[in-house]
């Protein structure tokens, strides 16, 4: 890369055309400095874009939803937790779809996992799996639920914005597919947990029997 073209990027050098661009040792040092500062100038432009583009929306949205949650009262979803504890096929969507959604929305990450206390022990790992898998899909539309980890969605959505496309379509599909995935994840994890629980109780019985035989 020619030395002159890089040196001309320094704002002071461009104002006076009579000054020769630095050459030799100091020229190389100046180029290195320009390159070094350029790394962070690019980062600064990126930061400015994030702050002006995303933060104002977040301030208003977070305030509105936080106020809504306080007005409604998060303790009202306790009833759903009690319903989700019931056995039977028709309660699966309540346990791994409605309850995770409501607890992530109202209690937000990480307090949403406390809703597991209403469930019997055998459902708890599956509920945790279901709830934790929803803390990113929800951020597309409701960023208050997991404000610390927004960039899983925002990172990829940033590319869509760069292309000049609307991110709403992606946000809605992310949320809907997320709901399908948490239901599936809850069911699969519940099956695995139950298999492991029954295997463990069978093992315990066996060891008890061998202990009785040797005694």
């Amino acid at each position: 890369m020619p030395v002159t073209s890089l040196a001309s990027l320094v704002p002071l050098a461009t104002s006076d055309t009579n000054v020769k661009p630095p050459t030799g040792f100091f020229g190389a040092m100046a180029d290195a400095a320009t390159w070094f500062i350029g790394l962070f100038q690019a980062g600064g432009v990126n930061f400015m874009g994030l702050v002006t583009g995303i933060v104002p929306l977040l301030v208003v949205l977070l305030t509105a939803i936080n106020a809504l949650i306080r007005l409604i009262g998060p303790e009202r979803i306790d009833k759903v937790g009690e319903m989700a504890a019931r056995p039977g096929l028709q309660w699966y969507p309540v346990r791994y779809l409605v309850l995770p959604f409501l607890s992530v929305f109202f209690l937000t990450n990480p307090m949403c996992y406390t809703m597991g206390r209403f469930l019997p022990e055998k459902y708890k790992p599956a509920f945790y799996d279901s709830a934790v898998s929803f803390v990113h899909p929800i951020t597309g539309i409701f960023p208050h639920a997991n404000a610390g980890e927004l960039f899983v969605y925002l990172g990829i959505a940033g590319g869509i914005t760069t292309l000049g496309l609307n991110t709403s379509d992606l946000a809605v599909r992310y949320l809907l597919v997320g709901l399908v995935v948490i239901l599936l994840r809850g069911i699969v994890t519940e099956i695995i947990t139950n298999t492991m629980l029954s295997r463990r109780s069978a093992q315990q019985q066996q060891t008890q029997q061998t202990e009785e035989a040797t005694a």
Partner: protein
Amino acid sequence: MSSATVTGGSSGWLAGVNRLLVTIGKAVGGVVGILYQAGRDSIDTIIRNILPFMAFISVIVGIINKTGLGDHLAHWVSPLASNLPGLIVISVFCAIPVLSPVLGPGAVIAQVIGVLLGVRIGKGDIAPQYSLPALFAIDPQVGCDFIPVGLALGEAEPETVEIGVPAVLISRLITGPIAVIIAYFASFGLYASSN
């Protein structure tokens, strides 16, 4: 509020008016208080959680873009992230039970990869309709580092935690790739080119 108790009882209708005013005042004060507290919370969240992460992301993006590292990364990430088998490979890798708890903490890795893929999508190396399956491909390890704490928050017994940790980790190995496939089929018609 205190004036209501002082003047109340002097005459019937005055007490009634007073009670009405107090009720209205209380209700309005309550709503304003809630809104104000909500604003305080959201500003607090932004300063504590969001701005620091934006700073961190900006440093990484600036360095990667300016040094040309991004173009080198793109050479092997883009082919992987722009077709279904490649995305499934990423999701299986992230869901390997030994790796998933390592990749999990704070979702930092998922967020950095998300930003990198976003940059590639913006430059046109990855087709935009792959954004949806990619979101699931980079995230099968979500919360894998947090299972014991999350279960403890749900007041689980130690025996449940002992079984729950491997159960969730194994489940991710199955549901991670399935999530990518579901997302792939759900992405039909998403940002489809009009020509």
